[in-house]
């Protein structure tokens, strides 16, 4: 007998601009979702994010560490050119998968 457990995947659609000012509220929102839902995989959808500066790098890395501690993974999708450039610069794609 094989028991298959479906992976619990959650997608969070982010909006607006991610900077030092907005990062704290996003941090609380993401941490609540991670704590309440305990997903195996969290996908951050950037389709409605216009800009992210380096404050977003700390935010993303912090959530990656939290998820990893739970044995879960963090993925991102729909990044515009500017955000993609910040991700590449910080080496985030070495630990965070970009999905379609």
């Amino acid at each position, binding site marked *: 007998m094989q028991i298959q457990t479906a992976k619990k995947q959650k997608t969070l659609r982010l909006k607006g*601009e991610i*900077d*030092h*000012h907005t*990062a704290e509220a996003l*941090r609380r929102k993401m941490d609540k979702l991670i704590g309440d839902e305990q997903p195996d995989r969290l996908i951050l959808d950037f389709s409605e994010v216009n*800009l992210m*500066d*380096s*404050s977003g*790098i*700390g*935010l993303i*890395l*912090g959530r990656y560490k939290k998820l990893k501690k739970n044995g879960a993974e963090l993925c991102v999708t729909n990044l*515009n*050119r*500017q955000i993609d*450039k*910040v991700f590449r*610069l*910080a080496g985030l794609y070495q630990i965070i998968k970009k999905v379609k």
Partner: protein
Amino acid sequence: MKTENKMELSFLGISENEGFARVCAGAFAAQVNPTMEEIADIKTAVSEAVTNVIVHAYPGEVGKVVLRGALQEDQLVIEVEDYGCGIPDLESALQPFYTTVAGEERSGMGFTVMQTFMDQMFVSSVVGQGTKVTMVKKFQKAKK
């Protein structure tokens, strides 16, 4: 536009003004019709410079930030200046992932982003007097 345009803004170093500063810089640059990518680069770099002031320049108080722009057809020169504590170890501060703020998820990538998104960046800082970041963006149409 043959005549150089200039602007100077002064505002409080509070996080609400990060978005204000980058929108102003982007709108100022838009006068010479740069690409959308160039405007995004300028907005990102200004966001980093202003955030640095807010996080580091005035420990325990709110201080003044000055944003200046000098615009020509082929380039934009941006200055972000504060009159705060200054940077004691500028060489280290310019290194990627260097941060003096522990426990707040600061990435230490601010200056690296500014350097990458703009064509030139200069930092002058005097401890106890303040810091000035000067950045230059050369527009693609001028590079051709």
